Structures are given as structure tokens and as C-alpha cells.
């Protein structure tokens, strides 16, 4: 039974990471945003700089009544949060922390993560439609339009790294990584990060949940635990995007003492990218819907194609 035990331990570690890392990012967001806006943020819960604020929030969410609107499609409405969250949990399985330190090494790890991340959006669309609320429906339409615009540059940028590394395995990509990729793959990194932000509907790409226009978009009718699940999905998405950016473009566990401290390097790089995600939220105003589409089709897609050409030339030149 040692094989089964190993699988169980790996799954338990992945689930623990899935539950803890998003909370840490959430707390970083609370505190970073507060200090950038000359506030102090949560200070009381847990006594030391409000570290337990999100735990307290979680307890509050659990206590709330689970309301389903009368006109809503009950089954789809109840199923939507799970559909939005589970793909991110599954995707965590394939993200490597260190050499050999991964839930499951897949030959097609990169492809797997991209495919699974796309499924999460179906949950948001289900929420937008099933709420039977016009603001939710409009939010859902915006989510779909945004996903269709940004999925293409997202995948193209990831394909550029896969071409450079000559493999689709996430472990293989980190093995093949070289510091000068920071320059060579820089456009791809920018495209990947920006398109990822848009796919997660994070500011400045939070048009679908624009509170001044759509109340809270697809999540308007949700409260209590179901809303908490959507929040968890959003922060898990930030962790996943940051980890992927770190693994694909920043070299994952590569760094001084990588044999012993590799996992720490991955976590540090992931944390750095997550900090930038929060920073961008504070620094930039929300894009208008037409600006959002223009950025994707006229900015990111050509840039990603340009990067693919550069990568192809680079691979051929280095091979000869």
C-alpha cells in the first residue's frame, strides 16, 4: 500500500496548499492595498496586524443564510460555485514546487493547466445566467467576451515558452530555463501575465463585475458560503497565475542553493508576482469594455505572434 499512501499524501498536500496559499494572498492584498492608500488595514482579528481577518471572514460566511432567488434556475445556481472552483484545485496538481516536488508530473503539464483553467469560466457563466438577474446576465456576457479575447494570447504566450524549452512538461521547462530567457521571452511574459489577469477578471480588467455599473456582475445574487467559494476561486486563480508565471518565465526553483532551497525560490517568485497582481489593482483604473477588447486583439495578439516568430528564429539559430 505504500503507493496508495504516497498518492494520498500528495493529494492532501495539494489540497492544503489550495486552502492556505489563497488566504495568504488575500491577506497580502488587504495589507498592501491599505498601506498603498495610507491606511493600516485589518489590525484587530488575531491580535498581530489582523492576521486572522480572513479566518474571521470565513466563519462569518459560513453562518449566513444560503439564499436562492425565486426566479433562479436552482440546480445551475447551486452548482456554479463548485464548477468555478474545482478546475483551479485540479490545476494545482500539475504545478511543480521544486525538482521532483510536484503533485503529479505530466508529460503535457502546460497543456493540462491551460485546458483546465479555461473550464473555470463556465462556472462564472452558469452563475451569470442562472441568477435570473439582468446585471448578472450582463456580467456573464462580459465574462464570455473577455475570455474569448484573452484566451488566444494567453495560450500563444505559453506556446512560445514550450517552443523554447522543447517540451510541454512544466518540470522540463524549468530544467531548460536559462537566465537570458528573461530577455528573450520578455514579450511573452508580459502577454501571459496581462492575459492571465484578464482571464481572472482582476482589476484593471474587472469589467464583468464593475460595481458602479453591474452591482457585482455574475456574483450579485450570491451570498454566504457560495460567495466565499467564488472568492476562494479568484484568489486560487491569482496563486495559479503567479505560480505559472514564475515556473514558465522566472525559472521556478532555479537560483542559488536550488538543491536545498528550490521550493523556497518557487514560493518567493510566486509571492513576488502575486504582489504585482495586487499592486496593479491599486495602480490602474478599470478599462472600458471597448478598450479591453482593443488591447487584446490589437495589442496582445500581435505581440504574442511576434514573440512566437522571435522564439522560432532563436530555437533554429541555437540548434544549428
Amino acid at each position, binding site marked *: 500500500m505504500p503507493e496508495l499512501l504516497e498518492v494520498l499524501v500528495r493529494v492532501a498536500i495539494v489540497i492544503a496548499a489550495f486552502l492556505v496559499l489563497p488566504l495568504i494572498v488575500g491577506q497580502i492584498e488587504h495589507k498592501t492595498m491599505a498601506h498603498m492608500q495610507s491606511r493600516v488595514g485589518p489590525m484587530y482579528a488575531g491580535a498581530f496586524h489582523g492576521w486572522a481577518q480572513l479566518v474571521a471572514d470565513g466563519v462569518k460566511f459560513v453562518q449566513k443564510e444560503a439564499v436562492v432567488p425565486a426566479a433562479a434556475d436552482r440546480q*445551475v445556481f447551486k452548482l456554479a460555485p463548485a464548477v468555478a472552483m474545482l478546475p483551479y484545485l485540479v490545476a494545482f496538481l500539475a504545478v511543480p514546487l521544486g525538482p521532483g516536488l510536484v503533485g503529479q508530473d505530466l508529460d503535457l503539464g502546460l497543456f493540462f493547466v491551460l485546458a483546465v483553467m479555461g473550464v473555470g469560466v463556465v462556472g462564472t457563466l452558469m452563475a451569470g445566467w*442562472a441568477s435570473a438577474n439582468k446585471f448578472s*446576465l450582463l456580467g456573464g456576457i462580459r465574462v464570455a467576451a473577455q475570455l474569448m479575447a484573452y484566451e488566444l494570447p494567453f495560450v500563444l504566450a505559453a506556446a512560445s515558452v514550450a517552443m523554447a524549452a522543447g517540451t510541454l512538461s512544466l518540470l522540463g521547462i524549468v530544467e531548460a530555463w536559462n537566465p537570458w530567457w528573461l530577455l528573450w521571452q520578455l514579450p511573452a511574459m508580459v502577454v501571459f501575465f496581462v492575459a492571465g489577469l484578464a482571464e481572472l477578471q482582476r482589476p484593471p480588467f474587472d469589467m464583468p463585475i464593475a460595481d458602479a455599473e453591474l452591482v457585482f456582475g455574475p456574483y450579485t445574487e450570491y451570498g454566504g458560503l457560495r460567495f466565499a467559494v467564488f472568492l476562494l476561486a479568484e484568489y486560487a486563480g491569482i496563486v495559479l497565475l503567479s505560480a505559472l508565471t514564475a515556473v514558465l518565465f522566472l525559472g521556478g526553483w532555479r537560483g542559488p542553493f536550488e538543491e536545498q532551497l528550490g521550493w523556497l525560490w518557487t514560493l518567493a517568485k510566486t509571492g513576488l508576482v502575486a504582489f504585482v497582481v495586487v499592486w496593479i489593482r491599486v495602480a490602474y483604473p478599470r478599462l472600458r469594455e471597448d478598450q479591453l477588447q482593443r488591447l487584446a486583439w490589437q495589442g496582445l495578439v500581435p505581440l504574442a505572434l511576434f514573440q512566437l516568430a522571435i522564439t522560432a528564429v532563436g530555437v533554429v539559430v541555437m540548434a544549428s
Partner: protein
Amino acid sequence: MTWVQVVFVLLGLVAVGSALLVVTTRNMVHAALWLVVTLGAVAGVYLVLAAEFLAWVQVLIYVGAVVVLLLFALMLTRAPTGPQTDLDARRALPAAGVALLVAAVLVTTVVAGFSEVTLDLDQAIVGSAEMTGATVFEKWVLPFEVLSVLLLAALIGAIVLSRADTAGAEDDEDAAAGSSDTADTADSRGRGGR
């Protein structure tokens, strides 16, 4: 029966069952969501057959893009919650007949072509990215290129059809808004009528 075969049969049943629900459900959005289940089960079937690359492509393209596009179109046009009464297709029987015929042709082809082939799951490298890439770009490169030209032609055709300012728009006043030239004529005609 081994466990793999049991999983294969179960996935097949899920795929067929949810596909039937796609065409019988009384709600358009439910049909689209059942389609997600069908496509996901088919991806699972590919996985069991060791076609890993194909499975993830199936999820990325069909669930992640095609169904999202479908839901987008539904939400943009008409998608009430609750059952819709006007969904009955008048040609349901002929459609079922055509579907059965297509299925019969495909099943005959697959059985005739592959009934002798067995897959050793312990050493299955059939569907890895490397194998798929080598097969497509070494053995089947000509059909691949022909398909890509076909897709490109379809893409250009879609752009031509959806643009209002190309030839043919002048006959149609409603579609003339895209070009300032024809828009002016349409405008003056409208004023003359008043």
C-alpha cells in the same frame, strides 16, 4: 473486464446519456451545459485510450472556447430561465434517422479498420505530445496543410460575410451603415421618403 474497461464503458455511458439530454432538454442553456458533460466524457475516453494530447485539446478547445462561445450567443440573444415551450424541432424523426446512419457508417469504419488493434496500456506512448507531433508533421503533413488552408478559407469567408462595407451591401440599405458613402445615400433616401 479490467478496471480500465469498466471506466471506459462508464465514460461512454455518461457521454451517450448526456448527449441524449442535450437534444431532449427543454432549456437551451441546459442543453449547452449538458454538452459540456458530453465533451468532458469524450475527453475522458481519449485519456483511457492513452491519447493524452487529444484529451486536453478537447477540453481546451471545445469546453474552454466552443461552449463558452455558444453560451455567449445564447445569453446575448434569448435565454430565459425555466422551460421553453417552442423548442420542438419539426424534423426530429428525419434528424434521428440521419444521426443513426452517420453513427452506423462511423462504427463500421472503425470496426473494419481497427478491430484487430490492441493497446498495451503499460507502454502506451501513442498519444504523447512527441508522438502526436511526429505523426502529424512527418507522416500526415499534407492532409494537415490542406486542412489548415480549408480553415483559413472558412475564416476569410466569415470575415467577408460579416463585413457590411464590401460589395453587395449597396443593395441592402440596412447593412450600409459601415461605409460613409452608402450610408449617405441611404440617409438621403430616408429623408426623401419623409
